[in-house]
């Protein structure tokens, strides 16, 4: 039981970086960015390929991050410079990345069984599961602190304002195109690092491991917001991280209850669809109750 809890929480932490990435585009920039479906395996592929080539885990993950940032910039330029709608721009980059990822790895699946990973190299004598938990915690904490600082700076505030009210921020002299590109860069960099971590934890990188990334990210963001609040930016960051852990816990529970793993994506999609339609359902329900009251 303890083992299951440790595994669940550490999975939640490794995926939390991806959830923070999705939060940055979906909530901060107000863009549904599908690039992440490609950058998650891109990070995994880059990291796994470099590890196989004898790189150390940390430089390999930095390169994975860089690759993710680049993918984000591509989507950003497609949508700001070429005026392709953000959703479509993300899909284009995502599809292109499928080929790119295959080229990077040279095949569809790259095992990491004998290579040193961040979890084996920096385990400090802990067993594998505990090491994952500890390293996941440190990486997430570091990322959260850096994000909190960044979004409090002038550039960070300008990115947030771009998502809220582009008219206002342009009237104050900020180039919104640059802010959108920066936001996508940061988001996809984080998602790629998440992919790199998950690949090292799973012991392989697979070209198909990105399927459903956006939905898992959205599920984490929404679960976190509902359960842990959205009072301030700091609060939102913490909510998203906890949301990612709760999502893993929900998945663990339904699997324990006997749901076939193949149905997981369907389950997650339905969960997100319900959560996203909540505002509408709530307002309809309120109107329905009011009407009935008025009729009586």
């Amino acid at each position: 039981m303890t083992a299951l809890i440790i595994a669940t929480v550490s999975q939640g932490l490794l995926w939390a970086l991806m959830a923070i990435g999705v939060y940055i585009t979906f909530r901060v920039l107000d863009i549904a960015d599908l690039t992440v479906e490609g950058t998650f395996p891109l990070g995994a592929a880059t990291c796994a390929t470099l590890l196989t080539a004898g790189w150390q885990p940390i430089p390999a993950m930095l390169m994975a991050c860089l690759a993710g940032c680049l993918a984000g910039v591509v989507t950003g330029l497609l949508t700001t410079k070429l005026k392709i709608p953000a959703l479509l721009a993300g899909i284009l980059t995502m599809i292109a990345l499928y080929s790119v990822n295959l080229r990077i790895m040279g095949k569809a699946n790259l095992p990491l069984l004998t290579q040193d990973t961040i979890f084996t190299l920096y385990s400090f004598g802990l067993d594998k599961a505990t090491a994952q938990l500890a390293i996941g915690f440190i990486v997430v904490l570091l990322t959260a602190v850096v994000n909190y600082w960044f979004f409090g700076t002038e550039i960070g505030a300008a990115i947030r304002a771009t998502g809220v009210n582009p008219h206002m921020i342009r009237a104050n002299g900020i180039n919104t195109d640059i802010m959108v590109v920066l936001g996508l860069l940061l988001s996809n960099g984080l998602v790629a690092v998440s992919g790199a971590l998950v690949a090292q934890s799973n012991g392989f990188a697979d070209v198909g491991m990105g399927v459903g990334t956006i939905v898992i990210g959205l599920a984490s963001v929404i679960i976190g917001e509902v359960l842990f609040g959205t009072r301030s930016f700091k609060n939102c960051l913490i909510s998203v991280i906890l949301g990612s852990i709760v999502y893993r816990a929900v998945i663990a529970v339904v699997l324990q209850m006997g749901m076939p793993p193949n149905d997981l994506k369907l389950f997650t999609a339905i969960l997100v669809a319900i959560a996203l339609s909540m505002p509408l359902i709530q307002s309809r329900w309120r109107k329905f109750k009011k009407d009935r009251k008025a009729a009586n």
Partner: protein
Amino acid sequence: MLDIKHISKTFNPGTITEKVALTDVSLHLAPGEFVTVIGGNGAGKSTLMNSIAGTYPVDTGTITIDSTDITKWPEHKRAKFIGRVFQDPMMGTAANMMIEENLAIAARRGKTPTLRWSSSAKEREHYRELLSGLHLGLEDRLESHVGLLSGGQRQALTLLMATMAQPKLLLLDEHTAALDPKTAEKVLSLTKSIVERQHLTTLMITHNMRDALRLGTRLIMMYEGRIIVDVKEEQKKGLQVKDLLELFEKAAGSELTSDSLLLS
């Protein structure tokens, strides 16, 4: 100061929805001049203002501010010179950010953002002072989200934001039209005091003829994409609403209906 020469603008040219919005408009504003702009719907007031702000490019003509030709500059670059308040109180501020964060962005208008933390304790003290000048009690609510404020409060805040980093030109696009009369009056008197204190060159669109006469040092009237009446300081002082209507009829050659200009 502001020098507009022969600008024209046609929307959707060559299509069935083609609309000529500005025809050969020229306008020169001296430093410190406070010009009120009136005219009916579709007269080209907002198009004139948006052309100056750079919301869209003009077809022909040039726009110069202090001998810098800004005709081809994008909107965000022009913001270095121009402060703006929009008709919609929601437009000028970022709703789910704190008052303090909105002010910090406005205080840096026209500057390239850096990785410095967005406001210091000293700046916050300065914001508090500025806010207390609005007499809305906002000085104690620096950390409140702007979305919690009323329309009038948001417009007052936007006005403060547009003027805190001294703009060369202040553009007010019917900034009291969406407010109730009492709030509108408050925001107008605030506008008057800020413009006078900072000697701002100002262009203010209004639907209200009395406001147009009461405020400012000069009045222009637009009709079908042209400036048809231009009344300077001395002449403007003695003017009444009915004089304005006469001026309009003479210049436009048509009767002014209450549809084309809202009287109140």
